[in-house]
C-alpha cells in the first residue's frame, strides 16, 4: 500500500512540468552560471578596465598606465562618463602636470572612483592607484639618484604578502557556492510537490477521497513525506552531478583545484549523503507548511519565507574562515549544512563535525515530522 502510494505520487509529481523544470533545468542553469563565473574569477586573464581621461591628456602621461589593462575613454567630463557607466574609474591631471613634476613643483592628480559596490570599479580603482604609486616611486628614485642618495634610504623594508590558503582558493570558492545553490535547488525543487501533496489535495478534494479508502493516515503521511524527500534528494544529486560534470569538462582552474584535493571521492560521497539528509529535513518542514495551508497558494506563501530563512547562514558564514568554524556552526540545522560543505570542499574531513551535522539534522527532521504527523491526524488540518 505504502509503495503504491509512493510510486503514484512520484509519477504524479514528475508529470508536473514545474517539478521537472525545477529539479533538473533550474539547477543546471544556476550551476552553469556560477561555475563559469567562478572560473572566470580564478583565471589569470586580466580584465581590461575603462579609464576616463580628459580630452587632450598627453600620451606621455597616459604611458603611466601602459602596463595595466586599461582602455582610455577620452571625454570632456570624466565624472559624467563614469556616471553613465562608460568608464569604471576616471582620472584628472593637473594642467601642467609634467612641467610641474619636472620642475619639482607639487602637481595634483585626481582619481574619481566609480560605483563602490561594483567589483570591476574597485578593481580598476586599485589598479589606477597602484600605477600611480609606481610612477611616484619612479620619480622619487630618479630624484634621489640625481641627488646621489641611496634609494634604499627611502625603503627601510620590503613587504611581502602571502596568503596561506591561496592554493585552495578554487575549492574555497566552491565551498560557498555549492551549499548556496544546493539549498536553493532542493527547496525550489521539492516545494511544488510539497504544496501539492497536502494543501493541493485538500483543495482538489482528493484528500477526502483518499481518507475514504482503508489506507491509514500514518501510511499516507509517510508516503507523501518520502515523495517530497525523494524529489528534494533528486534535485540535490542532479545539482551535484551537474557541477561535477561541468568542472570536469568545462573548466581548467576549478578542475585543477578539485584534482589536487585529497580524498576527493570520499568528500563527494559525504557531500551527497549530507545533501540527502538535508532534503529529508527540508521535506519535513515543507510538509508542515503544506498541512497548515488550505490551498496551494497559501502553502507557497508559508514555504517561501522558510526558504528565505535558509539563505541566512550565507550571511553569517561568508565572514567566517573555514578554520574558524566552531561547534555551534555544526549544531544548528541549515547553518550546519553550509558549515560542513564549506569545510568538506576545502578538503577537510572532520568526522566529528559530520556526525554532529547529520545527527542534528536527523533529530530536527524527526521532531518536525512528528509535529506534521500529529497535525495530519487532526481533522482540522486534513479537510477544509
Amino acid at each position, binding site marked *: *500500500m505504502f509503495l*503504491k*502510494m509512493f510510486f*503514484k505520487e512520484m*509519477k*504524479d509529481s514528475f*508529470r*508536473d512540468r514545474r517539478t521537472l523544470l525545477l529539479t533538473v533545468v533550474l539547477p543546471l542553469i544556476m550551476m552553469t552560471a556560477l561555475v563559469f563565473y567562478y572560473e572566470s574569477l580564478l583565471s589569470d586573464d586580466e580584465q581590461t578596465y575603462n579609464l576616463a581621461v580628459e580630452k587632450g591628456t598627453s600620451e606621455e602621461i597616459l604611458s603611466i598606465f601602459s602596463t595595466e589593462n586599461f582602455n582610455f575613454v577620452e571625454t570632456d567630463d570624466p565624472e559624467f562618463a563614469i556616471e553613465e557607466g562608460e568608464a569604471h574609474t576616471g582620472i584628472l591631471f593637473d594642467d601642467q602636470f609634467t612641467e610641474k613634476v619636472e620642475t619639482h613643483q607639487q602637481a595634483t592628480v585626481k582619481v574619481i572612483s566609480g560605483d563602490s559596490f561594483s567589483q570591476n570599479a574597485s578593481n580598476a580603482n586599485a589598479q589606477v592607484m597602484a600605477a600611480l604609486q609606481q610612477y611616484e616611486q619612479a620619480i622619487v628614485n630618479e630624484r634621489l639618484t640625481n641627488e646621489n642618495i641611496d634609494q634604499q634610504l627611502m625603503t627601510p623594508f620590503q613587504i611581502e604578502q602571502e596568503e596561506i590558503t591561496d592554493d585552495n582558493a578554487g575549492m574555497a570558492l566552491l565551498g560557498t557556492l555549492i551549499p548556496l545553490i544546493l539549498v536553493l535547488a532542493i527547496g525550489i525543487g521539492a516545494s511544488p510537490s510539497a504544496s501539492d501533496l497536502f494543501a493541493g489535495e485538500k483543495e*482538489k*478534494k*482528493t484528500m*477526502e*477521497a*483518499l*481518507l*475514504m*479508502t*482503508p*489506507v491509514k493516515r500514518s501510511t499516507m503521511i509517510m508516503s507523501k513525506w518520502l515523495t517530497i524527500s525523494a524529489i528534494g534528494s533528486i534535485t540535490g544529486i542532479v545539482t551535484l552531478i551537474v557541477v561535477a560534470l561541468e568542472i570536469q569538462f568545462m573548466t581548467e582552474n576549478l578542475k585543477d583545484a578539485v584534482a589536487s584535493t585529497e580524498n576527493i571521492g570520499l568528500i563527494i560521497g559525504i557531500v551527497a549523503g549530507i545533501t540527502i539528509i538535508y532534503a529529508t529535513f527540508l521535506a519535513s518542514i515543507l510538509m508542515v507548511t503544506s498541512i497548515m495551508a488550505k490551498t496551494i497558494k497559501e502553502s507557497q506563501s508559508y514555504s517561501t519565507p522558510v526558504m528565505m530563512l535558509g539563505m541566512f547562514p550565507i550571511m553569517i558564514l561568508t565572514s567566517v574562515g573555514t578554520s574558524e568554524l566552531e561547534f555551534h556552526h555544526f549544531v544548528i540545522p541549515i547553518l550546519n549544512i553550509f558549515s560542513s560543505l564549506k569545510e568538506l570542499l576545502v578538503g577537510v574531513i572532520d568526522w566529528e563535525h559530520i556526525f554532529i551535522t547529520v545527527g542534528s539534522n536527523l533529530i530536527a527532521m524527526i521532531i518536525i515530522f512528528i509535529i506534521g504527523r500529529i497535525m495530519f491526524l487532526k*481533522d482540522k488540518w486534513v*479537510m477544509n
Partner: protein
Amino acid sequence: MIEINEVTKRFQDKKKYVTALKHVSFTVEEGEVVGLLGENGAGKTTLLRAIATLLHPTDGTIKVAGYDTVKQPNDIKKKIGVLFGGETGLYDRLTARENLEYFASLYNLSKHETKVRIDELTKMFGMRDYLDRKVDGFSKGMRQKLAISRTLIHEPDIILFDEPTTGLDITAANVFRQLVHQLKQQGKTIIFSSHIMEEVQMLCDSVAMIHKGELIYHGNIEKLYEEENNEDLNYIFMSKLVRGGSDYVS
C-alpha cells in the same frame, strides 16, 4: 442501514464555537434514496462527513450497516462511496484509467477485479474515448463521470453525494440524475445533499431538511405532499421555516 442518533457536532473556530449539527436523528433504510435539503451553511456537508466516518460527532452516534462510525470506520469505508462536489477528487496529471487504478489499488482490489470494474464503469458512463487521456483537458461533464466512477470503484452499497450537481451544466446534471436512477434499481442506498428542490423531488424516496444544524423534517416525500396538501417542495421548505418561528427564518 444508516442510523443517526442524536448527533451534535461542534467546531471550535478560533475562540468561537460553531454548532454545525444539533441533536440530529433519523434512519435510512436499505435501498432508500434520501435527499438532504438545506441552505448554505445548514450542516449538510458536516452530516455527510460524519456518516462517512471522516468527522467524529461531538455527541451522539451514527451506525452504518451496523458498524459504529467512530469505533469501526474501516468496516464502513469498504461499504461506502463518497463524492464531495460534482467533479472533484481527481488527479489532473494522471489519465482517467490511472485515477481509477490508483483508487482500486487503495481499496485492495486485485489486478483482475480492477480491470473488470474499470470495463464496467467505462461502459456504464461511455468513457471509452478518453479513458487513457490525462484528466487535465477534461470537460466538467467528463470529469464528473470519472469522479462518480472513482466513487463506485469498490462497488459500495451506500453512496453519499455532497452537492453533486452544483456548478455543472444541465447535461452533466442530467447524467447524474440518470445515474441515481440506475443505482437505485441496483438496490443501492443513496444520500445526496442539494439545494435544488426539483432534483430532490425527482429522485428521492424521502427528504431530510436541515436548517442551521437542526433537522426540521424527515420522512417520505409522498407523505409530505399529502400532509402539506402541496407538491411544491420549495414552498413546503419555506413554509416549514416560517412555521418554525422566527428562529428558523434568517
